[in-house]
């Protein structure tokens, strides 16, 4: 008898959680569609996005998924001796810029870093140059200067210690930090 009531318990728990999940997704769907409206007013590639929203009312659009994923990436890595961000990051950074443009009250901080090779003070300046590169890209793509703070830590706050190329590559970065 104990085993049977256990099973019943488990099944009802499963059913309840499914209901809860369903409720959650419908809430987020409402949020996403209102976000989608503001996106469509500002971006030119939203034509396809709104039409697919019409056909898939219960799920996120491709564009929304791309945007969400892009906003989740907050660390950008750089090549040695280089202050410009990698071309492969351009699309992701554009999403960040548009997100700032769409949400004028949103604030963030760009923290620039360098690997330990070279002198410390040059690395402090290099970290700032990297962060400024991303700052300028954000402004050109619609963000407002007042939304973004820039700080450089040079080589003083490495993500990974050690003298390997792998460690160095993890330290040459700019981090986006919410404020």
């Amino acid at each position, binding site marked *: 008898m104990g085993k049977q009531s256990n099973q019943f318990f488990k099944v009802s728990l499963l059913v309840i959680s499914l209901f809860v999940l369903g409720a959650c997704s419908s809430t987020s769907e409402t949020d996403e569609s209102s976000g989608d409206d503001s996106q469509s007013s500002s971006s030119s590639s939203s034509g396809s996005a709104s039409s697919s929203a019409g056909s898939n009312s219960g799920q996120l659009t491709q564009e929304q998924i791309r945007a969400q994923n892009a906003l989740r990436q907050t660390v950008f890595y750089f090549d*040695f001796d280089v202050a410009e961000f990698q071309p492969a990051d351009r699309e992701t950074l554009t999403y960040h810029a548009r997100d700032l443009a769409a949400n004028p009250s949103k604030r963030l901080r760009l923290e620039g870093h360098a690997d*330990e*090779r*070279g*002198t*410390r*003070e*040059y690395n*402090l*300046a*290099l970290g*700032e*140059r990297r962060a400024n590169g991303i700052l300028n890209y954000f402004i050109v793509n619609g963000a407002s200067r007042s939304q973004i703070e*820039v*700080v*450089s*830590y*040079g080589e*003083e*706050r490495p993500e990974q210690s*050690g*003298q390997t190329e792998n460690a160095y590559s993890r330290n040459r970065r700019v981090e986006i*930090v919410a404020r």
Partner: protein
Amino acid sequence: MKLRTSLLGALICLCSWSANAELSIQITQGVDNPIPIAVVPFSNESGGFFSEDVSQIVINDLEQVGEFRALSRANMLSMPSGEQEVFYRDWRILAQDYLLVGEINQQPGSQLVQVQYEFFDINREMKLAGEVLTGSVTQLRDIGHTISNVVFEQVTGIPGAFTSEILYIVSESAGPEMSLFRLEKADYDGARPQTLLESGEPIMSPSWSPNGQDVAYVSFETDLPRIYIQNIATGQRRQITNYPNINSSPVWSPDGTKLAMVLSKDGSPDIYVQDLNNNQLMRITDHPAIDTEPSWTPDGRHIVFMSDRTGQPQIYQMELGANSYNVERLTYDCFQCAKGKFLPDGLNLVHVRRETRQSPTYQIAILNIETLRVITLTGTSLDESPSVAPNGSMIMYATKFNGRGVLDAVSIDGRVKFRLPSSQGDVREPSWSPFLN
């Protein structure tokens, strides 16, 4: 993580009792024909026990930074403590060029000691120097270094720097994603370390004032890099700058009235000079490239700095008060040259050098700006932050050894080397004091 680090950042303490880095000196390279000197253990006339062996301190000083080799005590034929007991033949037989003897007296019940020393040239059979030094029993180490200064100057003609001190930064892991940073001061050989500042946020660029009383540095304790000045004896500190963006690289002028610094408030890092009396800020460089790492020529009339205005870091010089276009380039043959600082002779520029694009190795080198000859002083490959001894004879710098940050020192002809590894954490950014009283 952000909240945790800012809470730690609030933990700024001026402590002298917390665990220090404990640098222990190691000689890594000596000369081929060292000058033979005999240092006889100083006699102890008071019958008590002293915490410091003064004659051993002198031996260590001379062997570490000079070109001396001390005679082993076991080989000594006699143990004189004063001139009347010295027989030059005893020392000529042992092929010694110089002899140092002495005696220490402490009055019973007193903290005062009297150290009498006498220094002899064996070949010319004459006394070169001698005096009585008085101090407290806790100053025996300082007395030893003072005697080393005299011996060194008598033999080489160069004033000794054994009573000088160093500042440096220690960085230690304090847990996952947390570090502890300390600004410490110690004797030139790493003895008697003292913590001047402790912080959960980075500290950079310590710089001694020319009178040896203050230190300027960069602290990230407000989460942003700002310049502070702290009195070494009292621990009193004040924030000097609060400009937007980078505030870094504070360096005192030779007359102690001004601080050169790097500010990026006007778009890119440039060199500025702030007058410490009236807080007036003077702009020195005006260029969209990175201009950083200022230092002063010994006459105080020029600023030396690094700029990457031609694409890669090179070293330049500018006269204070001149037009910002009037910039003279000093380095040409390197892929990157940085952190330039003149020796007291105003002729030799010590700097960090990377020879080629292909090889990212950084070494300490000296460029003579008249002959244009370059000597590379180091064989390691991640060298930075060279700092010159006040007598211009040695350069201390930061490097990596077995993955740890250590301090190395090398004589300016590259022949003598010693190392100051730390017992804990990474040590870096040494700053050698001026001559101290």
